[in-house]
């Protein structure tokens, strides 16, 4: 399973080489998340309708390597948007993927774009 982790590296708006349409905005619950598939990647997409922001990150929780983060609860701490893993409630910043419990592992994040009510995720694959 460890090798799964290597599939995920953060992409930033300026390093994105392709924007992939993953669904309609209404496919994603307000103030919650859902998972999309892109090739062999599983990406968790979060719709923060309270702040009108969208975030995306790997669905793989680095703690026990399970594909669960999209099912976690969202929220913020000191203004940083975050997701809590449903398995052991480790929390991660959705801005930079860092772990907010002070542990060393982190997650990869991806940029999200909304156009005409469609949700696009930025990837940097070939």
């Amino acid at each position: 399973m460890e090798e799964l982790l290597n599939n995920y590296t953060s992409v930033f708006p300026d390093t994105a080489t392709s924007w992939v349409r993953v669904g309609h905005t209404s496919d994603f619950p307000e103030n919650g998340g859902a998972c999309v598939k892109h090739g062999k990647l599983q990406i968790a997409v979060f719709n923060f309708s309270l702040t009108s922001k969208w975030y995306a990150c790997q669905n793989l929780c680095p703690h026990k390597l399970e594909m669960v983060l999209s099912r976690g609860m969202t929220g913020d701490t000191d203004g940083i948007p975050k997701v809590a893993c449903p398995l052991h409630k480790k929390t991660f910043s959705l801005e930079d993927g860092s772990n907010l419990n002070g542990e060393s592992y982190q997650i990869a994040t991806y940029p999200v774009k909304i156009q005409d009510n469609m949700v696009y995720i930025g990837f940097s694959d070939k």
Partner: protein
Amino acid sequence: MKKVIVIGNGMVGYKFCEKLAAHPDFEAFQVVVFGEEPRPAYDRVHLSEYFSDKTADQLLLAGRDWYASKGIALHTSELVTAIDLEAKTVTTHKQAVYEYDNLILATGSAPFVPPIKGADKKGVFVYRTIEDLDAMKAYAAKLKSGAKAAVLGGGLLGLEAANAAKELGLEAHVIEFAPRLMPRQLDDAASAILQAKIESLGIGIHLSKATQQIAGDEAIERMEFADDTHLDVDMLIISAGIRPRDELARACGIQVGPRGGIVVNEKMQTSDSHVYAIGEVALYNDGIYGLVAPGYEMADVAVHQLTDGSKSMAASIDMSTQLKLIGTEVASFGDPFIENEEVAAITYVNKRNGIYKRINVARDGSRLYGGILVGDSSDYNSLFQIYYNAMKLPLNPEDLILGSRGGDSNILGSVLDLPDTAQICSCESVSKGSICKSIEEGTCSDLKDVIKCTKATTGCGGCKPMVVDLVNETLKALGKEVKDTVCEHFKYNRQELYDLIKIKLIKTFEEALARLGSGCGCEICKPVIASIFSSVYMDTANKQPVIQDSNDRFLANIQRNGTYSVVPRVAGGEISPEKLIVLGEVAKKYNLYTKITGGQRIDLFGARLHELPLIWKELIDAGFESGHAYGKSLRTVKSCVGSTWCRYGMHESVSFAIEIENRYRGLRSPHKLKGGVSGCIRECAEARGKDFGLIAVDGGWNLYVCGNGGATPKHAILLAEQLDDATCIKYLDRFLMFYIRTSGPLVRTAPWLEKLDGGIEYLKQVVIEDSLGIAEELETEMQGLVNKYECEWKQAIEDPKLASRFKHFVNSDDVDDTVEFVSLRDQKMPRPW
């Protein structure tokens, strides 16, 4: 630039780097670190967690990027092989030579392997590094099931190793040469209590055994003892003490002790003034200290010696320990054994509960010299402070271990009475003064800040309760209100939120945030508010799925591999053969692991997210409903068979249990609720182990409340006697509703009652005598909730919009191909972590 070389990148070597890097003069140093192990320093104290829930990376004290960011050159997998004191250089096994101005020896220690014949056989291990653990794991995996492991040494580490062996699935045994366990920390009586406790966990204890030889062909097969007995084993872990790794120092002529260890003075300087030794390799005041706290203190002293020279080592080093042992608490502090003309021991032994407490007190009552706690070490922090600061003892020193029998006041009085110098966190050496000052001077405003800026509680965590008390008391003393607010988003406690939501008729989380809170919410306040909505409006979890705790959001318990379990309600544990067949058929069709639960019903495990609605459709069609096994809500009302069949039964316990379970099904509450109904005082339904329990007696039911099993078992307490069915339900309605209204989040009925001013007598007044005049209101409210019950699984499958959440991918019908199962006794289980 001053060149500093650190040999050894273990816990203490790392602490040296951390402290030096944080020092204002750090810029003046150039630091090079050599570690023999392949990875940067990790948390050896919590090494055993590598077998349960931590990876090697999680154990790291700091990643490589930390060293890089500080400009510290870290060479791992590189052994220093020689020191030249004249030339001031070190040479590594790669023949590389490095110069130093100052050298820090932090080479730690190695496990001591006694010269026993056969100790070199296969299957014999030591317990110190991650590699040791990997080797043990690999070896254990190849052994047949039921294989046995022995641990040589019944000290602190040996017991931990035995537990690790048990976690590897082996039958574990501890072999100790001395006539008692942990001979350096415990007396005979304490050891006997601990032994009973450990044996009850299935670990064999063999005392007074001198091992003569380790027998076996190539690999270990048997241990033979001097008394002509033997023990057949497949694996052995040696944990017989440590030997300081002073070989480098010895070879270059630095002074070492007669029994090993590098001699240092109070500045941590060795016989060569440019060379310092710290941690487990250092021999200070004729002692080697095999604990991390003194090592950290030495690292701090060495840093100060290299910089401002402002600190040296205290003359006596405290070896008090509190253990994280296998399901039992053990602590010893000060001098655990002292007893003479001036000092008398006071002991308390409770063999029934496995508790032993000993304190060694001056005969004139003037001070505390030390003591031992087994089975219950909750008073350790307070006792330690009294001992360590030579504080005044109460008039009856026995109150220190028995509690002053009038109330439950803290034996210390107030934590604020401690002297400022009292060391609260010994791992990070944080004093009471520095914690209080950080708040008084305004640097910190709450617990989170204090932990961040002082590092208190970040080591073993044992001091946490005391730090929390200190922070709260200091805030109070400053006239600041200490509120048990839910989280940063809502500055109210649960009861206030409950009242506000009810009065203001708030119905959605967004509205609650807008009117009562701030920010986006989080994983703490969302479930609290969701629970309040359901208690006030009987909302099911379908109304606002995203604010539910993760289990409630998908109406199922998530499993270790991200699949779910399905638990239909089986009220009172009564189930017909037809329904049993349905459960069997559904489980077969979806290939689910089945198990009878501790709550008298059947759990079907291993369903994938998209299968949940399909499974529940079949179950609901067959007459089942949600069992709410995932919610903080009513779980089960356990029954015994009662007067319908049992020759002793006094009333129909099954019928009544079913009636009660159906009455409160779906009721959400601050924590889960469980009930029990027994047909006579033999109590086969374990009703007194539940949040509410009924026991049939002559003339009706006795009603008990506020018990639970779980982590802190409590027997329920008698609320009322000889009730008829209707009165029982009336009192239950009042009791449950009162609890739901007033409890804190995730506080079960027993701890709620403990905190309720006036306790059970007050509860009786409210529930029975209606002293608050709210009884009718509570009953009406409960009846309203009962009337509104709906099966939330039925809702979820009937409304396609609600069902759409049970899909792994939004943009594909594929299933998650990373989920793997392996087989287990003709069924399946998740691939282990």
